[in-house]
């Protein structure tokens, strides 16, 4: 029924049928008892920024890790541009640029070594990576620190080097887990701008956040998840319709998550 809402709202808005990210009846349980994702179905078309909202421990990161191929779903299927994340794992993963919620990875590598590593893993040609490293690091103000170890970076700089790293292969699908955390206002603005550009050129951005302001300003559509279950999926307007008009999103959000208590 929830999936029904999700599909209907989108179909009404656009009327196309190319799904970039498709989750069908996905389940994930930890340790046999804790149901982190409960029969989740979602479809996200191209050209859209999709916000994934929910309180702490709602199952956002688990869902994102399932989409990125980090976790294996107990049942259900996940397709990225039609490629199944388990059966056609490598092809599916190549479509994705994934930013994890912790930027503390490869700390003992220099920035440039990390970027080269990622580019090699994603099979990016020398010329292409040169051009992209140059432009992205300039845009994020990281050009001068690429020779330093990531260990010496601040939280926000680590976040930025990871974002640069996953964008080197020019993925059509961006999957970002809490990407704004730790970014300074300028970088945060820049990232939002880039997300918009990316979606407007026919690609897809899927990101989780618990900052409702961000969701309200950036997202074309949002989904709200709590205790592994999809509570709502639709545009902001639909969400406002769904609840009483002129209620702030925060109130809606609280209402949504509390009704489950």
């Amino acid at each position, binding site marked *: 029924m929830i999936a029904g809402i999700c599909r209907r709202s989108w179909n009404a808005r656009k009327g196309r049928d190319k799904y970039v990210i498709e989750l069908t009846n996905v389940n994930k349980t930890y340790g046999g008892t804790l149901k982190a994702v409960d029969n989740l179905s979602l479809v996200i078309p191209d050209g859209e920024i999709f916000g994934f909202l929910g309180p702490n421990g709602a199952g956002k990161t688990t869902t994102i*890790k399932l989409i*990125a*191929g*980090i*976790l*294996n779903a107990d049942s259900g299927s996940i397709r990225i541009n039609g490629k199944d994340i388990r059966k056609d*794992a*490598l*092809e599916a*993963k*190549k479509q*994705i640029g*994934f930013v*994890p919620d912790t930027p*503390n*990875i*490869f700390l*003992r*590598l220099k920035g*440039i*070594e990390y*970027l*080269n*590593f990622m*580019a*090699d*893993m*994603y*099979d*990016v*040609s*020398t010329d292409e*990576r*040169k051009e992209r*490293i*140059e432009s992205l690091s300039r845009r994020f103000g990281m*050009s*001068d*620190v*690429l*020779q*330093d*170890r990531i*260990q*010496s970076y601040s939280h926000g700089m680590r976040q930025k080097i990871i974002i640069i790293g996953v964008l080197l292969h020019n993925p059509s699908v961006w999957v970002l887990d809490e990407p704004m955390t730790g970014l300074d206002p300028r970088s945060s603005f820049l990232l939002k701008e880039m997300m918009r550009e990316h979606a407007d050129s026919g690609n897809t951005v899927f990101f989780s956040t618990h900052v409702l302001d961000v969701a309200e300003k950036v997202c074309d559509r949002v989904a709200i998840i709590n205790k592994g279950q999809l509570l709502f999926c639709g545009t902001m307007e639909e969400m406002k319709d769904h609840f009483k008009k002129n209620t702030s999103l925060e109130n809606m959000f609280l209402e949504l998550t509390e009704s489950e208590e």
Partner: protein
Amino acid sequence: MKNKTLLLARTLIKNGEGLGIRGSSTFTKVALILVFAILIPGLMTGISFLVANLLGILSHIGQEGVVLSWGIAIDSTIVFVFGIFYVISTFYFSSDVEMLLPLPLKPGQIMGAKFLVVTVYEYLTIAVFFLPVWITYGIYMGCGPLFYLYGLIVYLLMPVTPLAAASVIIMLVMRFTNLSRYKDTVKVLGGMIGVFIGVGVNVVMQNVMGTMSQEQIMELIQKGDNSLVVLTSGIFPTARWGAEAMIHYGEPSGLFSILLYVGFSVLIYLILLWLGQLIYLRGVMGLSETGSKRNKSNGLDLEKEVVKGSIIRTYTLVELKLLFRTPIYFINCVMINFLWPVFIILPLIFQPAEANMIHELSKILNKPGTEGMILAGSFAAALFLSATNGTASTSISREGQQLFVKKYLPVSYRQQLNAKILSGFILGFVSVLIMFLFAVFMFKLPLWLGLLILSAAWLPVLYTSLTGLLIDIYNPKLDWDSEQKAVKQNINVLYNMLAGIIPGALTVIAFSFSPGLPLTFAVLTGTYGLLCYFLGKLLYTKGVKRFIQLEA
């Protein structure tokens, strides 16, 4: 102050994971308990028999006390050498240090608590050796209860003096080489200095013994009445007092010795606390900082630095870079290759007597007809050396909570495992190369034989890399908060040692009857070639499946 120190020590011990079996599978726990239930009592029984034999001989000449004094001296040395490593990792590299610094504790209290933690670890280390010596001596000599009481006191205070010596050395090194910009380098250098000091002490100890002439020793022996005990005083004074207290437990001199022993140990501990208060904090602060150049002129040459490479090459290089740049990995996975040669070469420089021995040994080795045995021996040595290297057997564990990164990369798990095998193989092969140099230059073996060894001995390295990775992928230790837990407190390293040492021993036994070089070469390369083939198959099927299942 004492209370806070004790409280902190208790918390630190509880927080530690010991051997890290908590959270492992039942199979791992059972296997581990079996290993310890068989190996350690076995070892202790062996030592007991040895001690009983020695006592039988020594009691004839009235020198039975030597068993105790040497037992204590050897234990003190073990404490010292292990202490160097324990102290570096517990005092300085431990991740809890940053958490403790903001607490309202005096530096002396933090250091004192950490000292106690290491002392507890040392109890476990020395128990294996000291308990059989103590108990066997007591039973053999029919000692009274006071002997056991003194023994307990000696045991409980035994780590204090040598560990204090190790702590002071490391604290001074850390205090005066604290270049926070080169944190990792400092850590590695600290570790290396620690090792060299360990070796140095070993050499000095041997020299102390060596400088006494035969006549002097004979004279001491003839004196009887445990006069040889004096010899051990050259190492740690407490070792002698401890031994004398236990030997003369029934006499006033025994009481005097035990009081001296306790008094000295307490004094040393107090001096250490005072020193810790002075220099510990300075060494620790800044360790958590990392400097960066942030230097534009040092800027990036994109033409040179940004070049496409193959997945396997880049992945392997990154593995190696992390091994070289993470101090605790460097010490355990890279430096260990060079430890054995250092332990052999250094005494040679200081002790001409051993050089003679090498000379004699090389004569024996160069006799015609021994080539087969030499090949088998080198094969076994390669098995042993590469099995003691933890690179492959911690290659999944080292990923820790960041294993997820390897999951979203569009690189097949088979390829990732290949790169991990390759990095383990490269580091393991270094020890074979060193062995080759030793064979040709030290033992003067013919070059062709050395090359033959080289052409065969890569197989045991591949074998232990495969077993190591398989063991680690089935039982990875991913839930760690400091890197040392991934390699030092990882039971997989021990499992892989067994996987290498057992076939190594079998190889030596099988070829001890000297079947000739061609047969030895054919059988060994054939057997291990096949073994590697099947292990590789296993890794590509079951291992890959297991990798897919792993979720950090």
